Structure formats: C-alpha cells, structure tokens
C-alpha cells in the first residue's frame, strides 16, 4: 500500500477514508479513543456536579454566568460541526478544494469559539474575582470548561497542521483517513459542549 499509485488511484473509491487497512485502523482507533475521552469528561462532570455549590463565600454560578455569550459560543461550535460534515461530504466526492474550504470555515468558527471562551474567563476573573483558586466550585468550573477548551485548541492545531501539510497535494488514500478522524474528533468536542451548556450553564443559571 505504500506505492504512490495505490494511494492515488485513477478513481477514488466510495469511502476513501476506509479504503485502506491503515484507514480502517485509524477510524476504529479514534472511535475507541473517543470512548476513553467520554469517561474522562464523565469524571470531570461528576466532579463538577459534586462541587458546583461549594462556592466558599465566593461568587455563585447564577451570579456570574451570562447566557447571551454562551448562546453565541454554542452556535459557533454547533455550526462548525455542520461545516465539518460538509467538508467530509466533499471529501467523499473527491472534491479537494471544497473540502479545504469547509475545513477552513470550521477552523475559523473554532477560533471564534475559543476567543469567546477566553473573553468569558477573563471577564469572570476581572469582574468578579472568580478564579481557579477562589473556591472548589471555581476549580471544578475552570477544569471542566478548560479541559473542553483545551480540546478545542488541540483540534484547531490538528486541522491547521493537516491543511498546511496537505496544501500542495490533493486528496489521496493516505490523507483521507486523517481528515476523517479529525472530523470525528471535532463532532465529539461539539457533543461535550452540549453537555457543558446544559449541566454547567443552564443548570447553573436556573437549576
């Protein structure tokens, strides 16, 4: 499978991301990895739920959270998941330039999300003196949301690296699985955010 002609066939197969054994391995490996990630976030959610009222006379969740910004962040991230679906659609149709375009949009939306999150954290710290060290609630909040933000950052580095590395060559059976695994990872990040939106922000505001 290492010869270029086998990785660059005349006509691309139906699912280029799963056409090689390496592709199948990557696909399967990433799904298992996401299973582990689910436990990682479940542990963080559990910790957060146990400590979310332990404010130690510091700011409580309903005093600081603003749903407006969180709504914008949610829309940015959900849309970026949709755009990565478009990218994968074009990958399966072997339309490299459109795939790159939609992945670029995905990355931009991700950057927007991350910028909002940094603004949000800075706002809490400067406005309310609500920090990682101010209470058990603060530690749990920044750890859970920060782990998610860290995953977004990692995903951005990932997709940007992919786009740079493959800028001068088209789609082939070697890089198609790489784009596809990124897309799967990105959806996972999105799903975690839905839970954060519900458990942290909605329950923090009205729960």
């Amino acid at each position: 499978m290492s010869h270029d002609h086998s990785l660059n066939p005349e006509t691309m197969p139906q699912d280029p991301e799963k056409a090689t054994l390496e592709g199948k391995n990557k696909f399967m490996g990433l799904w298992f990895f996401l299973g582990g990630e689910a436990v990682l976030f479940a542990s963080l959610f559990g910790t957060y739920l146990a400590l979310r009222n332990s404010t130690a006379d510091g700011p409580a969740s309903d005093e600081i959270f603003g749903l407006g910004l969180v709504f914008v962040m949610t829309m940015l991230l959900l849309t970026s998941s949709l755009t990565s679906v478009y990218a994968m659609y074009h990958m399966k149709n072997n339309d490299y330039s459109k795939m790159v375009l939609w992945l670029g949009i995905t990355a931009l939306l991700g950057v927007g999300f991350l910028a909002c999150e940094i603004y949000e954290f800075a706002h809490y710290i400067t406005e309310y003196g609500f920090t990682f060290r101010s209470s058990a609630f603060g530690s749990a909040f920044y750890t859970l949301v920060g782990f998610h933000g860290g995953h977004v950052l990692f995903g951005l580095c990932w997709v940007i690296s992919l786009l740079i590395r493959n800028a001068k060559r088209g789609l082939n059976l070697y890089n198609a699985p790489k784009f596809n695994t990124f897309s799967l990872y990105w959806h996972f990040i999105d799903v975690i955010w839905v839970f954060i939106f519900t458990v942290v922000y909605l329950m923090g505001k009205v729960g």
Partner: protein
Amino acid sequence: MSVTATQKRSVGAVLWDYLTTIDHKKIAHLYLIGGGFFFILGGLEAVIIRIQLIKPENDFISAGFYNEMITMHGTTMIFLAAMPILLGLMNAIMPLQIGARDVSFPFLNSLGFWLFMFGGLLLNCSWFLGGAPDAGWTSYASLAIDSPGHGVDFYVAGLQIAGAGTLMGGINFLATIVNMRAPGMTYMRMPLFAWATFITSVLILFAFPALTVNLFLLMFDRMFGSAFFDVALGGNTIIWQHLFWIFGHPEVYILILPLFGLFSDVFSTFSKKRLFGYTAMVFATMLIAFLGFMVWAHHMFTVGLGPVANSIFAIATMAIAVPTGIKIFNWLATMWGGSITINSAMLWALGFIPSFTIGGMTGVMLGSAVADYQYHDTYFVIAHFHYVIVGGTVFGIFCGLHYWWPVMFGRILHEGMGKLTFWTFFIGFHMTFFIQHFLGLMGMPRRYWVFLEDQGLDLGNLISTIGAFFMSFAVIVFIINIFYTAAKGERPSPDPYDGRTLEWATASSPPPHYNFAQLPLTRGLDPLWIEKMEGNGKMTPAEPLGDIHMPNGSILPFLMSLGFFIAGFGFIYQVDHSAWYLALYGGMAFALGCMVVRSFKDDHGHHIPKEELEREAD
C-alpha cells in the same frame, strides 16, 4: 532488512534496534525487561516491609521510610510490574494468536512502552530526590494533599505519564483485534487469551481516564493551588476515593482477566482437550468485566455512603463470584478426562486454581458490607488481595513466561529449575499470606510500622516473613534459569508443546519479524489442532506468497516520552522555583515538536519482497 538470529551484531546496533523498534515481539521483550526490573524492585520493597515486621517493635527502618516502602511496593507492583508484564505477554502473543503480522498502531505501541518506562523511572527518581511518595498506593487525598516534600508529586507525574502509555496500549489492542484478524479467524474462534486481551483492553480504555482526571485534580491541588480536596474552600476528599476506585476496581480485573485467558489456553493445551465451555468462558469474561465497573464502592463501605448504597454494591460484588465460578468449573472440566502433561507451566496453572479460589472466597466475605466493618484496613484485606493478585496474576505471569518462552525467545526454560521455582514460590506464598488472614481477624491493622509484643501477632508475623524469603529464593532461581537458558537452553521446534493455536504455527522459533509469510486460514476453534487432526500438520495459507508491507521503525516514541519525562520534573519543581518552568515548557515543546515531525513526515512503511521470503523459507 531481516536479520537472522545467527548473525552477530554490535551492542550499539542492538540497542538502537530496540530503541527504535515497532515490532510487537521486540516491544514485548522491552515490556518484559522493564516490568521485570520493576518486579524485582517491588519485591525488594516487599522483603524490606516483611523484615521490618519480623518481630515486635522492630526498628529495621524508620516509620517514614516504612510509609514510603508500602506506597512504592503497591504502586510499583501494580502499575510498573504486573501491568507492563501483562502488556508484554499480550504484545508477544495476541497478534500471533489472531494470525496478524503486527498490531494496528505499531508506532503507538512503541510510544506506549516508552511512556510507561519513563513514567516508572520518574516515579522512582523520587527515592534519590528527597523521598518517595508516602500516602499509600491509593494516595487518598486527605493524606496526600498534606504530604510534605515532593514524594506525592512524583506519584502524580509518574503515574500520569505511565497511565497514558497504558491507555495507548489498550486502544491499540482493541483496534488490532477488530481489524487485523486473519481470514477465517472469527471472534468466536479466537483463543481465550486473545479474547481476554480484548476485554482487558476495554477495561483499560474505560477505567484509566478516571485515574487521569483524578491525578489531574491532585496535581492542580498540590501544584497550582486549586481547591478540589481543600475542605476550607468547599472541596471534598471523597471525590478522590470515588474516582480512584472507579478506576481501581476495573484495574484489578485488568490484572487478572488476561491470566484467565492464558490459563484457559494452558489447561486446554496440556490436557489435550478443547476448552470446556468455550462460549460460556467468553461470556463469563465479559460479565466479569461489566460487573467490574459496578462495584467500586465496596472499597468504601466504611466511608458512610449509607445502607442502601452499601447493600447495592455488596450484592453486585457477590454477583461477580458467579461468572468466576463458571470459569473455575470449566477449567476443572477441561482437565477432566484429559491426557494431562505436568510441566512447570502447567504446575503454575494447577497451583493457581486453589490459591485463587481462596482469594475469591475471602473476596465474597469482604463484599459483605456489614462484616467489612470488621475486616476493613486489617491484614485480612492484605491477605485477600495478595491471594488474588499473587495467586492469580503472578502465578499467571510465571505460567505464561514458562509456556511462551519458546515463542518469545526461541529457547525453552529449564524444567528442573522451573519446578523448583514453582514449589518454593507456592509454599512461600501460602506461608506468607495464609497466616495474614488470621492476623487480620485478630485485629492487626494494615500499614502500621510496628506491632506490640504478646498480642498474639508475633508468631504469625514471623512465619509470614519466612514465607517471603521462600518467594525471594524462588525468584532468584527463576532469574538464574533465565540466564542459564539464554546461554545453554535448548532450542525447541516452533511447536514444542503440540499446541492448538496459531502462535505455535509460525515458521521458526522465535517467529520471523513479519510473523507469517502467508496469513493462515482458520477453519475453527483451535485452528492448528484442526489441521493436525486432519493430517495436514500445518496451516493452509489464505493467500499466495507476495510482498509483505511492514511499518518502519522510529526513534520518535522514545524522544516524545523523554520530553514528557523532562516536563514531569518541571511540573514537580516549578512550585519551588520558577526557573523550572523552563523544563516544563521545554519538555512539552520537545514532545509536541516530535508529534509535529511525526505528522508532517509521511511514513508509508516498507515492503519485504517476495523473493526474500522465498529465500528465507529455504
């Protein structure tokens, strides 16, 4: 590319080969060497503990040093000895058993090993840098956040790095078994050891992230001023216990399930019979794994979770005895009426059944929440978990090493020394730990540095320590056996035990680095045995002889792990001086840089041409 065993190579070339190898068989060697080293280290720590307890009010070591000893003995044995040796056996054997040429992610496989090794080394550096961790292997937060010095920091950083490596190993084995089984090797034709590897990997995958999070929480509290376990700021130390045991209970099944698989293969081979109740064995393993996630709170009966929670977890705990009992009876039924060969591998398997059953029975006793208030934190618990971990895991490791030594190293271990190892270890093991049940029932608490005279504990502790010397003797004999075998051992045929499964169907012993020139066609359970019974004697190939695609070696896994190792020191010492941030960021940047290199440099692997395979076959 391929180097035959007869060619002599320089030490440097061999070293470079092992530093860069991504061959699952060589990574298995590395795991066995690394795990074996830590096994000896953990064993020495155990002997020191037992010498301290040989007589009342002994002052062989100080109280603080004793705490470090018990912490490091437990941590080393579980994370750095038992698991890596198991990962080594899985690496060596599982791909062969399913008829694969390598694992799904050879690069990750190597990275997993080096992360384990550097994590273990980081943890043990603490001995020379102001003291080892001393909060127990469970490192309960209420104790750990106030532990002075950097001992617990080394625990956090070392286990975080080693744990990441283990997680990679688990994902790799899962993908391998799903994607790389040879033609005809359906799931329900896999040998039990391959099944156990699969199910153990599921446990690793779903258990280790809980430990990862827990270690992060402790790290943030100790190094970055967060308040997860700081009660004054609303923290809660019980969170540590929950997350630790949500990881920790599946962990004990990670330690035993691979050996359940291994014993199944051994009983079947040396009884010359198909495994009794194969399907039941597979599903019992799954059931044990599933229930393993449902019982963590039985380690916390005395915390005060309330009678409802305690009852639920007590019932779930006792339920595990059912699938385990199924396994015990199926092993006995496999031997029933079989033509049994008793050699050193089989002796370990035979010794395992009564030893492990005793451990299981005390497990059911401990599972009774009410009675547990009496047993909790006494030597009864120590006796229980050593009966399952030594009587199960260590017996299994010795069994597997004796059984698969020919596959892994192309030599057969000396039988006489093998039997001497077994008998001295078996007697020493029961001497050490059986009496501890009674010490515990008489009220001797665990983790105490000394005990007082004339409380009925003197003789029991003396016997227990003498048993530990027997076990040490056995391990020394085993090490002599390894060196003797390496120098003068008999070179067996690829199938010395008249085996039933594919690891015995390779062309040579040890197998060539591509495992099978042509992938074998599996026609049922115990594929090699089927071919033998039909008079073929060897596997039918499933493909014509052709070029073989193999991955390339790489030094990057070693370098990445080195980066994390350096960053680990940075994390630990940045609280003392901010210059250490240099190590933290430098190490991280180096590791990430290696990842970028890995991502940007295409690696298509290489081909072994058909002609070379034909030449080697001659």
